[in-house]
């Protein structure tokens, strides 16, 4: 898969990859964002709008992320909640074998829906 669009802020890169079924927002590198509302939130909000409009599943893929400060998680939490009470379909993918990712992202399971419309998936 090739990235359709990429955004870079310091050591963080976000790739947007779209195919017929999914719209993937892939995080790579390290995130030390002071104000994620200026960088991450617009990307996630637009991606959620586009996936709902195109009847696709949004995938937020953290598996290539080496570090993330707590501020970076805030827009992710807000997008998950908006999709949970709305109509979007989101999968959060993280690398289960990375302990910090397992601890940080598995806690997002509180946003998972019984019908797996919102899904938190630890992968290897």
């Amino acid at each position, binding site marked *: 898969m090739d990235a359709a669009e990429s955004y870079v802020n310091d050591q963080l890169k976000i790739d947007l990859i779209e195919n017929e079924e999914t719209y993937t927002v892939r995080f790579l590198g*390290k995130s030390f964002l002071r*104000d994620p509302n200026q960088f991450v939130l617009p990307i996630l909000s637009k991606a959620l709008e586009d996936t709902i409009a195109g009847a696709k599943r949004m995938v937020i893929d953290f598996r290539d992320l080496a570090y993330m400060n707590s501020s970076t998680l805030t827009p992710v939490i807000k997008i998950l909640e908006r999709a949970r009470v709305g109509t979007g379909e989101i999968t959060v993918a993280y690398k289960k074998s990375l302990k910090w990712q397992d601890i940080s992202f598995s806690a997002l399971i509180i946003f998972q829906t019984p019908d797996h419309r919102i899904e938190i998936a630890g992968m290897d």
Partner: protein
Amino acid sequence: MDRKEGGRKIPSRESGEFEIFVDSDWAQMGKVNNAILDYLTSHELSDELANRYTMVACELTENGIKYGSFEMDGDFVRVRIRLDGGSISVEVTNPVGEDTRAYLSELDQTIQWIRGFQDPFEAYIERMRAISREPLEIDRSGLGLVRITYEGRSALDFFVEEDSTLSVSAVSELNR
């Protein structure tokens, strides 16, 4: 003892202390993260522990930069990590001013709030739920301190010295 080189102490295997000074420029956080991770890795902490305590030190450093008062030349955030047998202590110190009184009160309340939970995981979940209900435009997470106790498995404390210097510490047993 650690030797000092270019303003930064270089660790030796016998010594367990590392100190780094950071000014209020947020753009340094990447270098700070790398320096701390290198130090912890050089002391043969596993990748899991090195990443865990790098996160603890970086979250505290970010708070030091955000809420510190840097009005004088030479004002900085000091990050000190001590490895002592089976324990690790991360202490972040920064000057505070009158404009940071509200933060000190919030810091005190947050630490007390976290201590009210038997399991830090419950505090982490509670904070995530609160964030999820906040308007999109609010960018403060308040998640860093909770993350330090949950993911970082560390006990938090703080004190303010007479010279208006705030010290926040996170202490943990390495075998936890």
